[in-house]
């Protein structure tokens, strides 16, 4: 963990359970975690381990059952729906496995989408900011293309451009290479790495080792509990292999 940088995210004994027809299903147990500004963290774990749920809670897409979540030192348990929406519009952004781009809409319009919900970015800056984001992911010559005309890798780069257009404090990437071939996956991870080098905080959820290799810190989660949290990649992989056995 990079102790010198200010803490962006802090979880204290955070638990999450789902309730279906009076049946309580615990998903996360006593998660304690700190993530500093500028980190590139990979949350790894097998399917059903609770890593995506953790990311959704961190990204204010889902709530938690107990514990505390402090974002930039501020308790988040009192936030109402509108405040949560405001944080999603201004402070965090997402890159999804399935790209989640609007169909029959151009690359530039897709990248511009989060700006519609941003409360303080003026309308006059929307196009220039979107063009800048598109350029950052190297798709400036595809700005006017419809998303259906792009390859999978290009679509994910559009999603990355969309995620950084509001200049958020943290970008969450949920299995960003899951639907891509290996070459496109590498290109997408390099794009995320570049953003991290420029100072963006990246939190990545993946179950692929090759994808996690791009991160500087790896948190391994299993059955709803953090089983390892390390910047030593080799140790984490070794631990993961041991756990899988």
């Amino acid at each position, binding site marked *: 963990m990079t102790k010198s940088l200010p803490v962006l995210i802090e979880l204290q004994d955070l638990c999450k359970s789902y309730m279906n027809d009076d049946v309580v299903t615990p998903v996360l147990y006593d998660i304690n975690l700190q993530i500093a500004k500028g980190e590139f963290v990979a949350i790894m774990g097998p399917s059903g381990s609770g890593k995506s749920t953790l990311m*959704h809670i961190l*990204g204010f*897409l*889902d709530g938690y059952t107990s514990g505390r979540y402090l974002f930039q030192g501020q308790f988040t348990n009192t936030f109402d*729906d*509108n405040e949560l*929406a*405001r944080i*999603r*519009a*201004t402070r965090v*952004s*997402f890159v*999804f496995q399935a790209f*989640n781009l*609007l*169909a*029959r*809409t151009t690359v530039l319009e897709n990248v511009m*989408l*989060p700006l*519609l*919900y*941003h409360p303080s970015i003026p*309308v006059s800056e929307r196009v220039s900011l979107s063009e800048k984001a598109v350029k950052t992911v190297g798709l400036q010559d595809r700005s006017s293309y419809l998303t259906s005309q792009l390859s999978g890798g290009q679509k994910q780069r559009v999603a990355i451009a*969309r995620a950084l257009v509001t200049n958020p404090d943290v970008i969450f990437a949920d299995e960003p290479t899951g639907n891509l071939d290996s070459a496109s996956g590498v290109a997408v991870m390099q794009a995320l790495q570049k953003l991290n080098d420029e100072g963006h905080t990246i939190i990545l959820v993946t179950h692929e080792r090759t994808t996690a290799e791009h991160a500087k810190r790896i948190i391994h989660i299993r059955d709803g509990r953090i089983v390892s949290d390390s910047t030593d990649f080799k140790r984490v992989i070794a631990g993961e292999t041991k756990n899988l056995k």
Partner: protein
Amino acid sequence: MRLSDISHAAFKGVTVNAMRSLLTMLGIIIGVGSVVLMSSVGESMEGVILGQISSLGPKSMVIFPGKQEGGAQGVMAGFDSLTFEDLRELEQLKSIDKLAPVIFITGRTSYGREEGTPQVFGVDDNFFKNQNISAREGRLLEKDDSDGGKAIAVLGSDTADKFFGSINPIGKRIKVGNNHYTVVGVAKALGSQFFQNADERVYVPFSVARTVTGQKYLNYITMVATDSFDLAFDDVRSLLRRRHGIDTSLNDEKKDDFVVRSSAQANEILGSVSLGLTLFITTIAAISLLVGGIGIMNIMLVSVTERTQEIGLRKALGAKGRDVLLQFLFEAILLTMIGGVIGQILGIGLAFVIALIVKNFLAKYVFAISLNAVVVSFFMAVATGIAFGISPARKAAALHPIEALRYE
């Protein structure tokens, strides 16, 4: 989210699947279109009917023989009920003026080889005054003509054109039945009155018609109230009831053997017809918009389900529930607005085509648009969009971002 962004997103949502949007609007298009069309036709017909009525002055009235009800049988039951004695007594009433009795002469009318069957009226000078008829050529019948029993005639403009064409008819002799009449004038075109062509007539002096037909009763009488129309109306009715021995205790018009007609009465009838038409159109509009609204709600619910992931994405990107609600509500409103405008254009266009066709049969039929119907139907369509769009929009707004994103 700004209102302009919401409306832009809604516009995109509607246009991205244009064919489906068009089919969704169909109910609204038909509803608004039929309202605009029927109101336009109603307005045009009202113009025609008012034109027929306005040929009578506001204080004019006409007495026909026969019963109020019973159609032709009713008329025939008392076709001889208006007598010359009635006329003489009516002349004594101070509340009426310009009494003009009419006797019809039957028989073919001819000039040389030209033959026809115009209506032949035996009238005096008052008739022309009461009906606001003026001369196009020559002169109309005057008081002396009736007193003197001259065999002269004034032609309606269509009769003159038919028999004489470009020849000047003044001084020419026409034949009605077995009698000859010298044409002294042609009346100006009147158009139609009570749906009869008032220009296809021949007017001869009343006294001549009485002699020729030997008729002891009158076909009808026109007159004008000197002051109060209501007073004149009551006086005429009381006099005729007394003379004809009709029981007046119940003031039952069905017992009368005469019918008094006036432009005021016709206006009243027209008013009730208009009200009926308005109710009819409103019912059609309500049913059509209800059906259209249900169609819109159905498609909007399908759209919300289809676009669940998009809703989840928008929420993940910072959209508030209100933003999503307004976007889907605007889509429903936009559908009804566009449907309303298309319906109006089609309704107006069809009304115009109908006017072009009907004009061939009813010269006075003029294309008219009911501005009220256009404005009201448009706002009703928009209200339908709000009423039926709110439920799908609320459903969209209430979606949980994660559940929506995971929806397949």
